[in-house]
């Protein structure tokens, strides 16, 4: 009568479970396998901005390689980029120099270590783990974009636009000023203010919150950018900075740069394999903008410097060598409008020149200006921003330091729009510097490096070696301990632990999550903690054996330990998810491997070992368990 409640104890797995296990094992081994093939020294050739490679480029590269007696192991074409693999580093270096000579500024030729994964594995998307900078060497920068400056700029961009708009509507205003986070338009009388208000309501209602101050003496309109517009300005600044950084980094010739937004005002830049951090910092750290202004030809700059008085509508500037010059207040266009600048030689005179390309808006503004000013001079002002952190009254305060230099003033020879040259420069060197400055000037808001982590190549290699050694040593020690305590069952757990390692590697490879040194530490820790599930099960089986039969002890061991294992692992997972969500780069790596390890270990330690144990002992007349 009691038997109705007793379930038949079955230590057999259905076939589908074995099948599933086999599939997992095969997939794990396949996707983990790319990690054993090592790297090919290779050269990565990607087209420069606005250049596209075609069949002739490829033929030309192959020709110069053949001429230099270099035989690539493989010539790969991925999305218009070439990845040329070589058999040794010597060939790789030689190839880089000949290709560089061939392409010049048409392409970026970077050295790379491409994974030597066989093609059939690459075809199914199997890749080796993505190593973090602390393992492969390289530079990591965290850049902070000065958002206050970005908003200032957004306001300042409107100053001229509003003036033009009012002039077009014949609205008479006294001045448009930017002060204390708002634009102030001053009027002489209320009528003009009313007209301006109507114009603003019609054309600028999406951008500004409009407040009017109808006082008798100084009627004015105060404009605050709407929240959405401010947010847009910030997003724009970040995007613009990321684009500019990407272009600058291309000049460095880095194979796989990472340029990513982090949070709402920071940018992460990772340059694997870059050794010359000084150069990288110079290129990344210089934050500059440009202004194109007309030269005020009427006044005397030297006298203005002495008296401090400048003619109406002009301002005093200085060249880099200290020579003063008067420029008009009106800014024709800024560095934001410059899309490219290249140094070269003037084909007629043979003197050095710089070719400048503007975007559409810049081109239109330039056309309008040059039409009226042929024969006048136009100057380029280079404005360098850097941010200093100074301590005032024990508080850390960021201070912006601005220096403005006139880098060039040239006569406008004719009417032009978005493409023009500055010619007659003294030397090719000067042309190169000017071009670099012009390109560097295309930044929306100043940035500051707030974090740097550089790892030399030897340290990266050491980290891999030491990390691997720790994993292997830890793994072997655990195998020994488990065998010592649980004999045959211990061996089964060891097989599961091995599978667990393979699965962790496979999942890391599949996800292309970044493996860091702390990440390896996480794997080591997982190896130690993963066997906990088996320890719980096996101890429970031992305990059950004292009171029940072998078959029911095995069953009860697994069943009863399961709740405990689940509870214990969920809490650990909780801790590692919190670790992940707060962590920066290397810490994230630790959290990732730990989380993956916890999940895979639950699978291998419970399903994996049970499958083997069931095969060995399940429903068989066993006299004694080797546990």
């Amino acid at each position, binding site marked *: 009568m*009691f038997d109705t409640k007793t*379930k038949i104890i079955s230590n057999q797995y259905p076939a589908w479970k074995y099948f599933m296990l086999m599939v997992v094992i095969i997939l794990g081994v396949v996707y983990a396998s790319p990690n054993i093939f090592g790297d090919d020294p290779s050269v990565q050739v990607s087209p420069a901005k606005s250049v596209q490679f075609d069949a002739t480029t490829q033929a030309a590269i192959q020709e110069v390689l053949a001429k230099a007696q270099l035989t690539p192991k493989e010539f790969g074409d991925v999305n218009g980029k070439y990845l040329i693999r070589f058999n040794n580093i010597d060939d790789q270096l030689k190839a880089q120099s000949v290709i560089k000579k061939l392409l010049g500024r048409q392409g970026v030729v970077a050295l790379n270590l491409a994974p030597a994964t066989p093609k059939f594995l690459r075809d199914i998307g199997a890749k080796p783990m993505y190593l973090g900078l602390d393992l492969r060497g390289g530079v990591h920068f965290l850049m902070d974009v000065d958002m206050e400056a970005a908003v200032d700029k957004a306001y300042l961009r409107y100053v001229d636009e509003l003036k033009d708009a009012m002039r077009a509507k014949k609205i008479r205003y006294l001045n448009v000023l930017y002060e204390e986070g708002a634009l102030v338009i001053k009027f002489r009388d209320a009528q003009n203010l009313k007209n301006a208000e109507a114009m603003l309501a019609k054309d600028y209602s999406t951008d500004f919150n409009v407040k009017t101050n109808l006082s008798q003496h100084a009627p004015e309109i105060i404009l605050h950018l709407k929240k959405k517009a401010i947010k847009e300005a910030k997003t724009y600044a970040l995007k613009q900075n990321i684009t500019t950084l990407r272009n600058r980094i291309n000049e460095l010739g880095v194979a796989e740069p990472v340029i990513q937004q982090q949070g709402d005002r920071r940018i992460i830049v990772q340059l694997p394999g870059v050794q010359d*951090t000084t150069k990288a*910092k110079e290129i990344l750290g210089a934050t500059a903008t440009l202004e194109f202004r007309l030269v005020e030809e009427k006044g005397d700059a030297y006298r203005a410097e002495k008296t401090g008085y400048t003619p109406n509508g002009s301002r005093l500037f200085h060249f880099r060598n200290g020579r003063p010059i008067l420029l008009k207040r009106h800014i024709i266009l800024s560095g934001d409008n410059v899309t490219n600048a290249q140094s070269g030689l003037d084909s007629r005179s043979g003197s050095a020149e710089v070719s400048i390309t503007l975007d559409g808006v810049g081109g239109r503004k330039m056309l309008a200006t040059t039409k009226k000013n042929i024969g006048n001079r136009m100057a380029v002002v280079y404005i360098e921003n*850097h941010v200093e*952190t100074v*301590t005032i009254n024990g508080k*850390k305060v960021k201070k912006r330091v601005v220096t403005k230099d006139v880098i060039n003033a040239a006569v406008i020879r004719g009417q032009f729009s978005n493409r023009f040259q500055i010619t007659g420069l003294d030397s090719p060197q000067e042309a190169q510097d000017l071009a670099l400055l012009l390109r560097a000037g295309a930044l929306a808001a100043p940035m*500051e490096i*707030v*974090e*740097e*982590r*550089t790892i030399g190549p*030897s*340290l990266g290699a050491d980290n891999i070696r*030491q*990390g691997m*050694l*720790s994993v292997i*040593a*830890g793994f072997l*020690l*655990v195998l020994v301990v*488990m065998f010592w*305590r649980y004999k045959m069952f211990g061996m089964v757990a060891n097989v599961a632990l091995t599978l667990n390692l393979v699965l962790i590697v496979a999942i890391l490879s599949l996800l292309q999550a970044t493996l860091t*040194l*702390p990440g390896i*530490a*996480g794997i*080591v*820790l997982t*190896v*130690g*903690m993963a066997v*906990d599930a088996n*320890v*719980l099960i096996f*101890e429970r089986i*031992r305990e059950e054996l*004292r009171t*029940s*039969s072998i078959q*029911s002890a095995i069953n*009860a061991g697994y*069943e*009863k330990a399961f*709740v*405990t294992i689940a*509870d*214990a692992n969920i*809490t*650990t997972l*909780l801790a*590692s998810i919190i670790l992940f969500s*707060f*962590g920066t780069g290397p*810490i994230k790596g*630790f*959290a990732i491997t730990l989380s993956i390890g916890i999940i895979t270990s639950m699978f291998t330690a419970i399903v994996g070992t049970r499958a083997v144990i069931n095969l060995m002992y399940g429903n068989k007349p066993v006299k004694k368990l080797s546990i």
Partner: protein
Amino acid sequence: MTTETIQQPSNIMETETKIDFMKYRKLALIVSSILVILSLTGIFYKGLNLGVDFTGGTIVELAYSEPADVDQIRSALQASGYSEAMVLNFGSAEDVLIRIAPIKGVKSAEISNKVVSVLRVKDNADFELRRVEFVGPQVGDELTEDGALAVVYALLGILIYVALRFEFRFSIGAVSALIHDVVITVGIFAWTGLQFDLTVLAALLAVIGYSLNDTIVVFDRVRENFRTVRGGSPIEVTNLAVNQMLARTIMTSLTTLVVLIALFVFGGEIIHNFALALIIGVVVGTYSSTYIATAIALALGVSKDDLMKPVKDGASVQEREEELTRIFLEEHAAKEAKNAQK
């Protein structure tokens, strides 16, 4: 639930060990209190040797081709205006670590470049740049804040999970144990002056994970025993659970410690303090699962009734009947199993 049909009532007399762990719980509480107070004194009085991750500043690691002259490097740097530069050997006689606090008015990202160029000129020895870490002061402040928050969030999350899964008294016990572990580990870092950086913080969170794992396993068994063992005071039931779990606790601590020692020995200088923090944490965490988590839960008056499955009003008589029947069935099955084995 399949467990119900195959569950055997554990006999209180049949564990490998019969140590009266709970007898020492008062002594343990005193020892732990002293350790925690000592640690807190260390943290607040002596302070932590914080790494650049938290203070901001620059670290430059150089590998010389021959044993480096630390004094000479220091004086070369002092001559160039880095009077506060800390120079010491790192792991080997050839490796040198230079640490420079943030300097007012200097573009901080440039410091590492300048240090390297100063040493290239003044110090003729041949060296290779191994590592540069620069953390701006505001990033350092953020990391400190985020780090502290992460620990707090982790503890809160655990408090809630354990309260839901077990009972709030267990939850308080578990979280007290975790705070105990974290404080003592940090205290040891304070007293020894070992550097506390981001990796050590990560290790602390892993310690929380590990120690909790251990605590949950014991709690789980206490709960099970409350439900299945008839008679016995809460203290006896708890003692039984700790004894039942003793072998498991030793084994898991052993395997974890073994891998951590491997990491400590082979993992290299950068990972040293990380491994050390975990080793300390695992030892302290293993102890605290029993003596802090369980003892506090007991002291708060956890009893059998709290962990019995909630009994619905009205159906209570029937439920109790069922429970009794279940226990009877289990005993019957156990007897049968024993007979079968014979």
